[in-house]
């Protein structure tokens, strides 16, 4: 049908006005855009610019407190702030580990889900569940899992006579961060799996069949067909995951509140405390700026690596 209509539309020469959609005049476009544009500019773009600027001031919470431009002072303090360095280190460990583990697990799951397996509907539905859950509830759920006495993890360890049965995982200096990373992986499975599954389904079957006829093993086909074809999806979703994870807040807030002794204090938790516990708006904004720099730096590094890999 569309082919017929396609030729039809070429048979009738029309002016710009009559080309629906494509021919939206600038005024019409503007009128349609304004309801969304106004709030975006007033409540998103302008605050963002102000937020970046606040990082160069000594703004504090409280009414009638004068705010002065202090240049790079916040950043000088920042570089000497052990808590900041610690939280960004933890933030990077968290974001890189969660993103990497999530990617491997999601890729495995997506490959399984693209096979004709009985029961895959169950795995598919379960894989989507974390998407619908409030981060707070995910946190509560895993608190119940890690709970030292009534929790199920320690009970499993007890029954299996494995070490660690009396451990309070989320309060342990050694184990709090790995435990939180584990939860982060669980919580982020849906988006990654869905994206990779869609990517897998867009790969033509005939490529695989041809390779199978040529005697390529499953692993060879995975490496030479699946992975290269998936590359754009992989790069996009891992980049997004990294950004989302580095900026994550609610999950860890509920699980540990950044404890014990800052061992799980992600950058956003640190910044939140600076802004809304201590009222240091300027310093918190400087932290925000530093987060943007770290994210942008990590992405450039990552994309550059992938590009070199693709061209070699």
């Amino acid at each position, binding site marked *: 049908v569309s082919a017929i*209509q396609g030729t*039809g539309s070429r048979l009738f020469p*029309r002016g710009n006005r009559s080309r*629906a*959609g*494509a021919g939206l005049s600038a005024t019409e*476009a503007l009128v349609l855009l304004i*309801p*969304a544009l106004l*709030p975006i500019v007033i*409540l998103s773009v*302008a605050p*963002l610019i*102000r*937020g970046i600027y*606040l990082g160069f001031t000594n703004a504090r919470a409280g009414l009638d407190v004068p705010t002065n431009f202090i240049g790079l002072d916040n950043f000088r303090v920042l570089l000497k702030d052990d808590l900041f360095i610690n939280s960004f280190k933890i933030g990077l460990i968290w974001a890189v580990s969660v993103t990497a583990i999530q990617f491997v697990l999601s890729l495995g*799951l997506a490959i*399984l889900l693209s*096979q004709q397996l009985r*029961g895959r509907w*169950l*795995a598919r*539905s*379960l894989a*989507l*569940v*974390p998407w*619908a859950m*409030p*981060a*707070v*509830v995910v946190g*509560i759920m*895993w*608190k*119940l899992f890690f709970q030292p*006495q*009534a929790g*199920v993890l320690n009970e499993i360890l007890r029954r299996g006579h494995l070490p660690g049965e009396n451990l309070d995982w989320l309060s342990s200096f050694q184990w709090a961060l790995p435990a939180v990373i584990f939860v982060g992986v*669980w919580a982020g499975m849906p988006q990654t799996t*869905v994206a990779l599954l869609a990517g897998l389904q*867009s*790969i033509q079957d005939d490529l695989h069949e041809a390779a*199978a006829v040529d005697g390529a093993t*499953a692993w060879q086909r*995975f490496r030479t067909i*699946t992975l290269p074809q998936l590359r754009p999806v992989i790069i996009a979703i891992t980049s*997004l995951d990294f*950004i989302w994870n580095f900026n994550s*807040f609610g999950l860890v*807030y*509920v699980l540990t509140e950044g404890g014990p002794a800052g061992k799980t204090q992600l950058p956003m938790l640190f*910044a939140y405390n600076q*802004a*809304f516990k201590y009222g240091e*708006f300027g310093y*918190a*904004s400087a932290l*925000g700026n530093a*987060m943007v720099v770290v994210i942008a730096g990590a992405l450039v590094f990552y994309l550059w690596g992938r590009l070199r890999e693709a061209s070699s």
Partner: protein
Amino acid sequence: VIVSSHPTRARTGQYLVLLAYILFLGFPLLWMLSVSFKGPRELVELYPSFIPADPTLENYRIALTENELVRSAVNSLKVATITALLTTAIGLPAAYVLARRRGLISRLGLGWILLSQMFPLILIIVPLFLLLRDLKLTDSHAGLILVYMVWALPFILWMLQSYVRGIPRDLEEAATVDGATRFQILVGIIAPLLAPGVVVTTLFAFITAWNEFFFALVILQTPELTTLPLKLAQFVGIEGIVRLGPLAASALLATAPSLILFTIIQRWLTRGLLSGAVKG
């Protein structure tokens, strides 16, 4: 798609791995469900069992009658509904332009959608907090809704414009040839075809607002105004360790609405999110 040289052995392996995934994904959920049916005595026992020895609905009764969970649910319902309707209403016309008009505006718009993902919320919440304070809107649902609206817009715009792209342009062009006005085209042709996408998008906006925690934590102070995630987080802080049963029941009750809605929309949701992205 991927066939091994040892078909049966590979199949068994695949089923084992699938089972491991199902356990990993589903087990914590079942455990929370199990805890929510356990009485206080069973919860302090040293050797917890998976199936409650003496299942009780007491935790659900406590969740619904104490701690004002219901009032928080009403607050969440109000905030999420208004956010969802408002965001879709202002997003729809803009999404139409983004999908149909190629040029600077659309490129800027889509660029902003992607860029907005990169900035940590702290950079936007501090100035927003100052702005809302000047407008006397902190600690109010109106202020929270404004923040949610702008925060949800990038996602909503992205989804809606991909649904608009899914409608063949030829349809509109044919209607123009027949002499229909732009308004007639939008209402008579686009709107009905877009309706499922709009419903899915609105419900998704509802779910994200229903689940949101960070902004609510910053903006709301008055206990009467708290939304569900905020209430649950307070619950963890104050007495969560002591009263695991009611905590689990409350958490499950709070998740039920978004889980049900999500189950309804998930098939269309993934299509809308990825159609543009994967086809490239």
